[in-house]
């Protein structure tokens, strides 16, 4: 009897406190309810260039984690480097009508029209790291012109006036029509125009292939044994150029600057002496920025295509002196 009284009293007390908290708004439902309810059940689809490499695997790991946590679906349609398969995937997405499509563009043009059609169908479009000429709801990624300016300036510092070098540099392009490539090229030539002592002895496309980068660099080194620097489009590609420089016994005398996602593989290549400097666009940071953009787009009452925002993710410099386990990430950490 006594016990039952006690229990009732306790329950009543509990209810009273709950009601009190409710009144004071301490459950914060004003913010929590629209946030969580607005996100659960939403559909997000990601079309990368391909899965299986550091950048896309890194972003996907971070995005998947948040999707699971907040209860919206996250699907990947992997076209495996085929623009054709990507076009089919996006066309299918238009019919499928998810809430948000995240697109990693192989070049400036291919998907531009399709993205317009996505927006017309009421699907918001978030472009990641490689953009098209048409801005959509959001772009999260590197500012490639800035990446190019930093890379070119690094070359000028090592091969320009007063360095007592030949001033000869090699440009290794990636995919010639990709946003990263075109914007970087603009930046290189823009910087080099003010530095006539820099001589571009070769400007060739390696199309993201390290063995092509190696073959090109090998030939260029034969023609120009006094080559001073190489500027490239992507660390995973330019490691081939590093291998050619190393094979020619010129490690250290040829400065190789490139850009990448800042993964452990890139850092390893710096410590092996294959690359000198990586302008990193920091995939873990980009992943977090993507997550924020996803939530914002899913919750915003704006219609698809109504507001167009951009977030250029911060850049960090990785050299032999700055790399540490803190700024080199592995996929397992992100999962």
């Amino acid at each position: 009897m006594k016990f039952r009284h006690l229990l009732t009293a306790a329950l009543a007390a509990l209810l009273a406190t709950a009601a009190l908290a409710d009144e004071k708004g301490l459950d914060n439902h004003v913010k929590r309810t629209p946030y969580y309810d607005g996100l659960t059940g939403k559909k997000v689809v990601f079309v990368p260039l391909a899965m299986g490499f550091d950048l896309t695997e890194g972003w996907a790991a971070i995005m998947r984690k948040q999707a699971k946590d907040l209860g919206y679906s996250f699907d990947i349609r992997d076209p495996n480097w085929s623009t054709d398969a990507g076009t089919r995937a996006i066309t299918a997405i238009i019919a499928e009508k998810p809430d948000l499509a995240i697109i990693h563009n192989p070049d400036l043009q291919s998907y531009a029209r399709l993205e317009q059609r996505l927006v017309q169908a009421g699907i918001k479009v978030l472009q990641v790291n490689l953009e098209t000429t048409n801005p959509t709801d959001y772009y999260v990624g590197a500012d490639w012109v800035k990446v190019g300016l930093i890379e070119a300036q690094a070359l000028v510092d090592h091969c320009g006036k007063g360095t007592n070098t030949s001033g000869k540099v090699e440009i290794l392009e990636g995919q010639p029509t990709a946003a990263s490539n075109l914007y970087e090229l603009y930046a290189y030539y823009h910087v080099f125009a003010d530095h006539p002592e820099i001589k571009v002895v070769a400007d060739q496309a390696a199309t993201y292939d390290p063995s092509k980068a190696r073959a090109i660099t090998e030939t260029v080194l034969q023609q120009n044994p006094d080559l001073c620097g190489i500027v490239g489009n992507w660390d995973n590609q330019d490691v081939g150029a590093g291998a050619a420089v190393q094979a020619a016994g010129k490690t250290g005398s040829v400065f190789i600057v490139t850009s990448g996602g800042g993964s452990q593989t890139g850092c390893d290549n710096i410590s092996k002496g294959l690359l000198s400097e990586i302008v990193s666009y920091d995939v873990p940071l980009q992943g977090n920025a993507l997550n924020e953009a996803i939530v914002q787009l899913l919750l915003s009452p704006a219609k698809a295509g109504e507001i167009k925002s951009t977030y250029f993710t911060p850049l960090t410099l990785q050299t032999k002196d700055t790399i540490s386990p803190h700024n080199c990430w592995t996929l397992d950490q992100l999962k």
Partner: protein
Amino acid sequence: MPRIKPTQEGIVFALAVVLFAAFSLTLSNFLTPGNLIALVRSVAILGILGLGMGLVIIGRGIDLAMVATMVVSSSWVLALATHSDTSLGTALMLGAVFVILVGLISGVLVAYATVPPIFTTLAMGLVVYGIGRAWLFQVDVQNTPGNSRFFELLGRGTVLGIPMLIVAFGTLALVVWALLRWTRVGRFIYATGDNPAAARIAGVPLRLLMVGQYVATSLIAYLAGLVMAAADSGMSTRVYNSTMIYDVLLVVVLGGIGLSGGRGGVRNVLVGTLLVGVLLNGMTINDIPYTLQNLIKSVILLFAIIVDSIINPRDEQTAQQEQGDI
């Protein structure tokens, strides 16, 4: 009146010589030992794959799975050696078992199930790549283990000043040449390629020989993969998505090995490789843009195929048989 009919090999060789002479005269650093080594080095992998492809085409087959086999087997070896406790020796052994299995499956499908080789190996390439991406490695770029003497030697070692890459290409060329020229197996391959039905009646163990050919191309692809990984300090499976398999066919067809089988030899592969090498090297030195390079390369392939169909016309009597024609 006897007429001297130029062979395709002769035409391509002449073309290579003309280009070579032109580049030597116009480019100041073209004719240096260093550049010539770089020239051969840049096409050695292509040449190694071309030797395998040549072998199977002479026997009236084709192996479009070579690039997939090369990429997946070597990436798996690197993944095993760097990310697990497996020693490099064991990893290399497992890689060899894998490629032999791939060759056996292709061979059995072509020889016993009589599926046309072009479809069998096209599908096999997709299967091999799929298996690799699904189970054998996580990411598509694998680096060579940092402290491996094996890859160090293969990638940077030299014999009499000649890089290992070229030595491997040269040795393999000798082996394939000897096989085709001096052994019974070699003669049988020519006989099969020329007229499979006749060869079979004459007592050639046709099916077994075909299986053997696909195992051989798989092993050659494996060798190419290891050498490539050593030379580039890593392997990128993206190579599978490139046009490399067509470049291998280009080397073989350009050299004058007829796609209808039974003709050609190692010399044709070498000539084809040489032309592509001279062309690529010269275009790189001249700093010709990427798209234009592709255009020039494909126009030359088209030219070679036209010449091939004029000089080696299809043999209507043997082309329509069970094994099919590509």
